[in-house]
């Protein structure tokens, strides 16, 4: 009885529906019903979090949620919750709640909020769908839905610059989707299945055709994961409002790409097969190059959000690099970074948004003395930055340590060198910001300062970064506790390797 309740597959649908229904409701609401809209938004986000927690518990117990129906002959729409999908779903539902709260504050008094929050919710629904997708086809469905629902967010401001960024975003992502579709259709024609299964569904000898399919699929996903040379859209998309950037970078878009690559490697081709076919090493090389390339480019950015954007390009490739190490430890490192990077990066973006909204600061050289002016925000930013660099005992350290062990296990010592070099570069582009925040005095007035009562900024804007910053510390310090990202990643990998 109790088992039945926990195993109810409609939980999957409900987890999807919360944000989907919220989106529809919000579209219908008149522009001026702010209170109702906020309630609907936060209520849906909270409800989704509860549903996901229930499923996390269930998956931990070893249950597997599954729901499917046939769409076309041979093609199923399938939702499935396994340990890997709960990882991504958990991340997105937690961060959605925080980002929604943040966005409510951020967009106070700006037009077109119904449209914004409607697409925002759709975007999260797509992310949840990507997480819960039980086969490649369902994954693709939500992957394209994500593309469509983020476009209005990117161009939300309607300025010429935003429209240009939106255009390049849509060209990149739709082309990626098309390439992915081609790979998927070919895969189906070759293997007759699109299912995800631990250890992969591809059988037999590696062939050039399978290699070509792998390249197509990874190239399609690499666009969203901002893998070099497919990263061009990401820095431009920075014109979007801060909560959008935060969501795009930490949770939705780039992570969808990275998560997809993980799925393709581990559940479609199978780690062993992909490694034997010699597909992983080139990808690892590309990921390593992207890590260094992103970091170097970040050094030269003067715009705070652009620097963070290049940092994202660099950091997401850690995930791919980890998977490509083709060993249990490497995979743990990659997966745990999926969560860690999300939480750290969203902290940084929240803070950047706060500086922009409260002080009107967009450029790094305008940040002098922001620390004393906005202490809580700046502390959060500092924690995020140190986390990124990989300072013990913060979250980023756990990642880099595990990845390092993984690369030694895989006997690829050059990866350690890449990790070290990247950490040094990270420090090189983050420490000057921290230095400016705390150790430089302000000589002139802020570009556009807004006062929001007693606190340093609006409380909607203040709490999300503070909470995520606390989380960065906690998941680093308590990495060994059950349900911490690290333990969950180990759980995923254990199940993957010993199904």
């Amino acid at each position, binding site marked *: 009885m109790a088992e039945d309740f926990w195993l109810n597959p409609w939980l999957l649908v409900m987890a999807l529906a919360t944000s989907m229904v919220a989106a529809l409701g919000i*579209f219908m609401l008149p522009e001026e019903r702010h209170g109702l809209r906020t309630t609907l938004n936060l209520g849906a986000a909270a409800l989704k979090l509860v549903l996901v927690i229930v499923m996390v518990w269930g998956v931990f117990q070893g249950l597997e949620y599954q729901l499917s129906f*046939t*769409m*076309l*002959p041979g*093609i199923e*729409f399938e939702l499935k919750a396994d340990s890997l999908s709960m990882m991504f779903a958990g991340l997105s539902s937690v961060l959605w709640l925080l980002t929604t709260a943040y966005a409510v504050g951020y967009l106070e008094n700006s*037009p*077109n909020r*119904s*449209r914004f929050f409607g697409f925002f919710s759709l975007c999260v629904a797509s992310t949840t769908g990507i997480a819960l997708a039980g086969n490649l*086809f369902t994954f*693709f*469905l939500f992957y*394209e*839905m994500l593309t*469509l629902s983020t*476009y*209005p967010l990117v*161009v939300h*401001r*309607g*300025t010429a610059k935003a*429209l240009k960024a*939106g*255009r390049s975003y*849509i060209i990149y992502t*739709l*082309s990626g*989707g*098309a*390439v992915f*579709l*081609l790979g998927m*259709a*070919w895969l*189906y*024609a070759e293997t007759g299945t699109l299912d995800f299964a631990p250890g992969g569904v591809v059988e037999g000898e590696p062939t050039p055709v399978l290699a070509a399919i792998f390249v197509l699929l990874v190239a399609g996903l690499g666009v969203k994961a901002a893998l070099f040379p497919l990263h061009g859209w990401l820095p431009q998309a920075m014109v979007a409002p801060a909560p959008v950037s935060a969501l795009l970078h930490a949770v939705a878009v780039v992570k969808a790409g990275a998560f997809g690559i993980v799925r393709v490697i581990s559940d479609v081709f199978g780690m062993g097969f992909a490694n034997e076919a010699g597909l992983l090493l080139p990808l690892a090389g590309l990921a390593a190059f992207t890590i260094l390339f992103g970091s170097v480019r970040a050094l030269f950015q003067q715009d705070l959000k652009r620097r963070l954007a290049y940092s994202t390009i660099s950091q997401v490739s850690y995930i791919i690099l980890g998977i490509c190490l083709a060993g249990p430890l490497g995979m743990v490192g990659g997966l745990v970074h999926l969560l860690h990077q999300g939480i750290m990066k969203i902290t940084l973006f929240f803070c950047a948004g706060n500086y922009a909204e409260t002080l009107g600061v967009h450029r790094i050289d305008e940040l002098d003395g922001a620390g004393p002016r906005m202490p809580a925000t700046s502390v959060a930013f500092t924690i995020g930055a140190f986390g990124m660099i990989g300072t013990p005992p913060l979250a980023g350290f756990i990642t880099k340590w595990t990845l390092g062990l993984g690369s030694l296990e895989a006997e690829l010592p050059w990866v350690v060198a890449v990790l070290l070099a990247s950490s040094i570069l990270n420090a090189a582009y983050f420490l000057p910001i921290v230095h400016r925040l705390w150790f430089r005095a302000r000589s002139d007035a802020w570009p556009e300062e807004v006062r929001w009562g007693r606190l340093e900024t609006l409380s909607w804007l203040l709490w999300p970064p503070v909470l995520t910053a606390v989380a960065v510390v906690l998941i680093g310090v308590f990495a060994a506790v059950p349900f911490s990202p690290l333990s969950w990643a180990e759980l995923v990998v254990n199940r993957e390797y010993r199904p």
Partner: protein
Amino acid sequence: MMAWLMAGLLFTPLAWAVMSLMAGFRAGWRLAWLGMAVQGLVSVLLWLAIADQGGFYYALGDWPAPLGIELRVDGLAVTFILLTATVATACGLHAGVYLDPDKPWQRYFWPLFWFLWAGLNAVWLGADLFNLYVGLELISLSAVGLVALGGAGDALRASLRYLLAALVGSLFYLLGVALIYGQFGTLSLGGVAQLAEDHTALAGAGIALALMLAGLALKTALFPLHGWLPPAHGIAPSPVSALLSALVLKASFYIAARLWLALGETQGSYGVAQLAGALGAAAVLWGSWMACLQPRLKQVVAYSTVAQVGYLFLLFPLTWQVSDQISQQAQEGMTLQVISHALAKAAMFLAAGNLVLSTGSSKVEDLAGVGRFLPFSLFSFGLAGVSLMSLPPSGGFAAKWLLLQATIGSGQWWWALVLIAGGLLSAAYVFRIYRASFQEASGQDDFHHPPRRLEAIPMALALLSLGLGLAGEPVLAIMGLPFEEDG
């Protein structure tokens, strides 16, 4: 029972045409409600009947073929009848509100509308080559009449071009019919197909088939014979454009497909099949490209029709001398593409009409800021666009998926590239419209709000086309209903 269903489909639209000619526009509209209800009911009943007892030939006037005219009532025909009932009803409901009842010429809208519907049903069910010709003419002339209705110089020019193209196409088809009759001595498609199986690769029959296909391609606006389409579809009132793009074009394509499936294998050739596919591919690329350049909203949609029709012609290479399974996939893909394009394009034209009505301008650039005032119609337009871009879960995606499988399965991978490129190009013109509407407004604030119903209809159609992919299997099941040759 069956006789009444046939009558319901073939004769009631004609009767309604007569009655609404007697009535004015408003009375005609009230009449139309009843007529559309009857059509919907009859279509569903026919579907149930076929599902129950399988498809069959129906001899009109109790004269069996080849002497009399036979109707072929099978799953595919029922699919198209249901589609027609859906789309035509939507367009009719939209037209009743959209058209200005005080203009004296609007009273002739309903008779033409019903004649068009009768012609469509006649074509879906027709299994007699000459009867199909008459059905085509019925459709073409009423479509031309609808385009020209009350029109000014531009509309007349468009309708004249349309008329001439349609007539030339019909004559090509008829010449082909003449040769087929000379060759096989019968006009019944079933009889011809049977004879063709015993006598393969007859030179004359091959030429006749090519002639008929050429004429039908002209009527379907296959590149490079598409020149007449954008003006006609772009300038007609929106409900008419929707009807033309969604259904009228499909009628001639449907005949071409039926001919090809019946005769292509035995009398066609690799060259004809590949040529049709190549022209279709060119249509996809050229139509999409032209759609990106059009300054007027409805022209964009019209060129998109040129492109989308191109996909349909991939049916020819994908069903010629391939395994049954691949041919089946291609046919299913084609059917889904017809349905999803019909729904999406009707939604798009109706939504475009609302946008034009609301901004008072037909230019794309004047859409700036409309996103704030008319999100509902814009949203319908967008959802329909998703289907045209063939993104999942839309019907367009399901169609493309099946076609992709057929291309890969038959080893003709070059069509796969066309399918992919076409999807991207259609995204380009759809996003061009979004982009214009997201632009923050330069002053223009006096948007007119169309009535609720005008907004609801395109939305319903767009949702149908979007959800079609999810219901792909049951829809294809209708098409796959069994057919008994002598039932």
